[in-house]
């Protein structure tokens, strides 16, 4: 009970997207690793300012699509050719042309699942608890404010220097968030 709250990170608030982006560029150049920017909408150019790589979500979707197409074709071949053959007018039992439309739809279906669940997996969502969501002012991150958080367990984190960096980047309100 009496255990003192552990610090989670320094939360710096910004008024405009431009300020948040300049601050992100400076934090990126300072070599921090465990930090993030929180914005009410995706800010154009912020990925570059943070030095993020291209998202790999596409691979999940691609694998989903391949799985969908293959399973569609195999399903129809197995059902209409192998397990219960339906001979019609001496035509081949399996025709890729008539099997294509359902397989095409399954490609899209599994690809879409891959995109959504891949995104959730890469973001480690859903999560029921986050230290920032307990913070009083952080609710504004979905409203009209921009926040930059540097976690205390970042190897480069130093109490005073990091705070000074964020101050010099133009944040007027810097607070420590507890875990």
């Amino acid at each position, binding site marked *: 009970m009496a255990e003192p709250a552990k610090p989670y990170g320094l939360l710096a608030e910004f008024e*405009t*997207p*431009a*300020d*948040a*982006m*300049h601050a992100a560029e400076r934090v990126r150049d300072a070599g921090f690793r465990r930090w*993030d920017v*929180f*914005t*009410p*909408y*995706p*800010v*154009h*150019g*912020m990925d570059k300012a*943070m030095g*993020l790589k*291209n*998202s790999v*979500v*596409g691979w999940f*979707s691609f694998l989903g699509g391949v799985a969908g197409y293959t399973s569609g074709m195999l399903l*129809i071949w197995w*059902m*209409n050719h192998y*397990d219960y053959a*339906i001979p019609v007018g001496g035509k081949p039992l399996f*025709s890729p042309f*008539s*099997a294509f*439309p*359902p397989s*095409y*739809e*399954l490609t*899209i*279906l599994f*690809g*879409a699942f891959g*995109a*959504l669940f*891949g*995104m*959730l997996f*890469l*973001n480690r*969502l*859903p*999560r029921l*608890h*986050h230290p920032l*969501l307990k913070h009083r002012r952080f*609710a*504004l*991150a*979905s*409203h*009209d404010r921009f926040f930059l958080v540097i976690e205390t367990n970042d190897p480069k984190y130093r109490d005073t220097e990091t705070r000074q960096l964020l101050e010099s980047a133009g944040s007027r309100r810097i607070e420590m968030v507890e875990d």
Partner: protein
Amino acid sequence: MGATAKLEVPCPVPPPELERVPLVANTRSLGWISDAVAGVAEGKTPKWWWPAFLISLVMMCLCFAMITYLMSTGVGVWGLGHPVMWGWAIVNFVWWIGIGHAGTLISAILFLLRQRWRTGVNRAAEAMTIFAVMCAGIFPVIHVGRIWLAWWLFPIPNANSIWPQFRSPLMWDVFAVSTYFTVSVLFWYMGLIPDLAVMRDRARTRLRKFGYGLFALGWTGSNRHWSHYEKAYLILAGLSTPLVLSVHSIVSLDFAVSQLPGWHTTIFPPYFVAGAIFSGFGMVLTLLIPIRKLCGLEDLITMRHVDLMCKVTLATGSIVGYAYAMEVFIAWYSGNPYERYAFWNRAFGPYWWSYWIMIACNVVIPQLFWFKKVRHHLVVVWIISILVNIGMWFERFVIVVTTLAREFLPANWGYYTPTWVDICTYLGTFGLFFTFFLLFLRFLPIIAIAEVKGVTPQADPHHPLGGAKKGGH
């Protein structure tokens, strides 16, 4: 003349009449957008909502009552009979599913085309898609006669050890429509996640905080998350685009793969897709023109949005008109007497009235949208949008009924009339649609908050309103 000399690129300021109308009127702030949209779901229930909801609920019960009557008695309660075995049920199915297509066009195709105005209308249009596909899905299922065996349409092992025949376009339809519904829900839900977080962060009561929080999945607005999110959204848009084109193409193949005159034509897939988008935009206008007024969202769904949607309606309506003309031309040019008769019969046979309602509502009346005065008169736009819906319903009626009523042998000819059960089931699906739509209006953000914020100038870090200093960022 050193290489270092900077070239002064002449960049005159455009005259005010050439500047684009902003997507959010009155330069509203980012916070205002949250307040306005979330306020619709958070505020007191408006007076108009309850009567609208109760009427919809009663009509939805009518739909279920009619289905119960149909199931307990048999398809004989409908007007179906030899030779017209596809009546209103299939007409309504194609009509409802076509309406859904505008939602996907707005959310996916316009996203890929970087049409930023879509953000104001995409959420409501996607909701419309989902509810319209729900209404559509009812009809083929109850139309099969023995509804308790409808699950045979799915590849589920059954006691007879028989699998579905995948050569049939009706099977393709099962896959197309169920995929369309699922992917539309995924796309809609993914767009909702950041906005559900907005609702969670604003919630005052524990219940709302819990409910919105649960479905927001712990979204924080982290840029690392946005990065994956935007990529996934782009991929979903890229997947939904071929999906929406394929769904109505496959619906059209239900007809085109058969050998009947008037159905067996190659123009059907593109013509059905254009018609679907045309009718869907009609429905989007029918819904959004009253909503923007009733919910006070005129600054977010501006006259520019209405104007652009009218233009899409005009374009797709003209494509549909071209398709009608081409069908008639090919019928004549083919030299096939059955094909020629099918089209002669459509225009001058016993169902001539439905053909000319279709031509008037789909081809003639939307041409009024060439005039800016018409596009900016909300009442006129609203009336035209309803006429578009009526016209597109008659298009499907013309296709389904006229061909079946008079096919090859005159001995097989007949005349089809619906019964009161047909009519009440169709009216009942409006109840289903509006019940869900009104619940959506009361509980979810009806405009994509995060996306609309992203298209304002103050959201752009390179714009002076977004805090950019003069001379670069």
